[in-house]
């Protein structure tokens, strides 16, 4: 990445996201409307979205969204892609002209099927995809894969989020899960790649806050082959989730408890009251100490089978959730929810470190992460 690109961003941001647990598809205009309310939480230096279920016709292909600084980067990257995948389709990502969105890089998308050769037999397709993403992001200057999951896509840019949504013509997509983000970076003029969400495979993370534990988390996930090319704490969250949920097959609630664990005092108490459960949390902190996110944060994570909202264990950043019928809403502000669903069945403020988990009930997409019924959610 060139120039100021890739610098770790310190930001205070607006977040929103929702899903239909029944898998009903919702027009992308909803997420634009929701994030627009949070205009004041961003400063025009970046924003972005991720939508799930948006490529039903290409749902079995990995959808790569790549931004290129120039044609050279595009050529180099495509060389890698062609070597490693069969390409089912490729095209520019459709955009419309918005006066405030300028200096757009080349934005291209590809629908890919991995072609694993003999020596790649041991690894899964997902790992193969990650490897490719890391390879391009790490080695091709001016190229950046910002979306790589199936039947989903991330869209991000420099600008106010509602403008970015319109720029990417989100009103032309329909998805069962949408997340959105508006940035307020304090130290770097936005670079398109630095905007949220950060993704790997179908994980997309939007985040408000600053992860003080960043380098501990980074060095931890890098042990497992992830490359934090962006040097942003949000990116690391995506990798942590991928590691824990996809590789380690931890239940999603448990993975959330790794990111925002209970305090030792609570664990000690739990060990006295419910020993087995206490042991689980003790072991989680012992083994995944380096995966704990420290510092203020609220995140919304989208993935193929659901949505997760989580705040840090002291709740230094806002997070609110609501329900209406099969819809689960999570946002940094209630207004972002009320804007698109004024008559909620319920609205609540999750406690510090308590995850909000939404899960797709009728999924045809067999995802790796263990699916947990919401009613079984454990609450500390």
């Amino acid at each position: 990445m060139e120039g100021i690109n890739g610098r770790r961003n310190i930001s205070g941001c607006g977040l929103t996201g929702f899903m239909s647990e029944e898998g009903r598809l919702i027009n992308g205009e909803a997420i634009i409307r929701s994030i627009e309310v949070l205009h004041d939480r961003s400063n025009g230096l970046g924003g972005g979205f991720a939508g799930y279920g948006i490529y039903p016709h290409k749902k079995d292909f990995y959808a790569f969204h790549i931004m290129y600084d120039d044609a050279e980067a595009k050529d180099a990257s495509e060389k890698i892609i062609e070597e490693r995948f069969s390409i089912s389709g490729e095209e520019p990502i459709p955009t419309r002209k918005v006066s405030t969105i300028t200096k757009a890089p080349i934005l291209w998308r590809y629908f890919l099927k991995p072609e694993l050769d003999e020596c790649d037999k041991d690894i899964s397709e997902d790992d193969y995809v990650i490897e490719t993403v890391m390879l391009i992001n790490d080695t091709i200057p001016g190229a950046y894969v910002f979306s790589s999951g199936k039947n989903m896509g991330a869209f991000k840019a420099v600008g106010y989020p509602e403008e970015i949504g319109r720029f990417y013509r989100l009103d032309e997509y329909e998805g069962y899960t949408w997340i959105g983000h508006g940035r307020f970076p304090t130290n770097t003029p936005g670079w398109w790649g630095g905007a949220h969400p950060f993704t790997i495979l179908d994980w997309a993370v939007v985040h408000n806050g600053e992860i003080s534990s960043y380098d501990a988390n980074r060095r931890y996930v890098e042990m497992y082959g992830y490359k934090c090319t962006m040097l942003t704490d949000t990116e690391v969250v995506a990798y942590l989730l991928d590691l824990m949920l996809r590789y380690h097959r931890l239940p999603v609630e448990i993975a959330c408890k790794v990111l925002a664990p209970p305090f030792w005092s609570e664990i000690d108490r739990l060990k006295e009251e419910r020993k087995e459960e206490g042991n689980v949390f003790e072991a989680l902190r012992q083994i995944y100490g380096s995966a704990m996110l420290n510092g203020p944060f609220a995140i919304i994570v989208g993935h193929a089978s659901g949505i997760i909202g989580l705040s840090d264990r002291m709740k230094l950043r806002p997070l609110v959730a609501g329900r209406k019928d099969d819809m689960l809403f999570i946002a940094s502000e209630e207004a972002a929810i009320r804007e698109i669903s004024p008559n909620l069945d319920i609205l609540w403020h999750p406690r510090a470190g308590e995850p909000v988990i939404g899960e797709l009930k009728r999924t045809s997409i067999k995802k790796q992460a263990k699916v947990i019924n919401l009613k079984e959610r454990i609450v500390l």
Partner: protein
Amino acid sequence: MKSYILPEFKIKRDNERCIECQVCVRQCAFEVHKVSQDGSIYSENDKCVACERCVTFCPTKALTIEEYEHYIKDNANWTASVQRNIWKQAETGGVLLTGMGNPKPYPIYWDHLLLNASQVTNPSIDPLREPMELRTYLGSKPESLEVEISGGSVRLKTKVSPQLKLEVPIMFSAMSFGAISYNACEALARAATELGTYCNTGEGGLHEKLYKYADHTIVQVASGRFGVHKKYLEKAAALEIKIGQGAKPGIGGHLPGEKVGEEVSRTRMIPVGSDALSPAPHHDIYSIEDLSQLIYSLKEATEYTKPVSVKIAAVHNVAAISSGIARAGADIIAIDGFRGGTGAAPTVIRDNVGIPVELAIAAVDSRLREEGIRNRVSIVAAGGFRSSADVIKAIALGADAVYIATAALVAMGCHVCQKCYTGKCNWGIATQDPKLSKRLNPDIAAERLYNLVAAWAHEISEMLGGMGINAIESLKGNRLHLRAVGLTKEEMDVLGVKVAGAPLS
């Protein structure tokens, strides 16, 4: 032979203040202060070791110790101490002995590393208002956990190997009964227990009276195997195989027979008055696979209930050695830097062998991560930790916890006179003389140790809070919170840190 050695120190007695109470006379085991026939007190400079016992205990502060002024013609090579050492050897023909850690002005990397703090974008955390967690677990961790959720309850399916729970990531490093007094051992054990951390027996065995602190004691198995028996292994929270020591990498130990009295003899299981010689290598460890055998022998002997640590001196190839140790099955690697202390070592070894622990930890942590085996072992850094700042920086570099020993001794009263090997420690620490060892009241010493570590813990909490972190594990290996000043590019590369002022990435 006429000695050419000039005194190092000079005692100044302010006669306006001296009340001739003779406290100095009674306190000096080196017999510096004497009462003359007429009852007045005088001092013999050449015996003074500058331990400051008399200065501290003089009720009127009538005493000061100064450097003995003797003119050495200005010379950058042939300094007074160089000449003194040559005279000593010319007069004795022996190896120069010394105690404590390397005093030479090698770079102290801690002092070239600066910590981060939050400003505006990220709230700092006030440890007085918010929980601040310093708890640390040492031991081998599995790469991942298998957790089962069913019917609203969770269950751990992975068996986690034994872990040492530290309420504060500071332990007391190995100091043997023999090298230090029983009272010092007791104070360390009591303080460790109260602090929720650990003391370490060194290679001196474990006195029966200290069995009650077993849950906070790490017992060492060293090359001499002194005091190692079934009960010894049982009365421990963890076992540590001592391969080397920062103050004297590559050489063994020697506890002179004069220090082997009844209690030391019984504890070490050697005859009274016999020299306790620790061989340089373990005679059953000539390679890494031998180490592995010993590790697993100890695990077998304790039925896999206790973590096994391997302590090595920080030497040039420390990263690769550590990798080998991790793969040999150790749960903890303790790395003792070249500033680590000793009760007795040849001066030339202490002052010239080994590498700084800062570089060693960074190299080891990086190497284990590169190999993807960092989870398998905990890293304990040792050797010359002077303050909470050193501790927190070590953790940011990648250590799980640290061992302190010299700082603990200083807390108990040691004034770093480096005469531990004489057995005449005026502070009652490095001695077996009952008249001297009773000077260390374990109540007071334990309290002082507790206070020191509690103070450091408090400071660590403050610094963590300042960085916006409320659990120590989030700092481990978090080198972005360290910045270098006055270091070369190569040093920064080894340390894995950026220069102060450089942008975040």
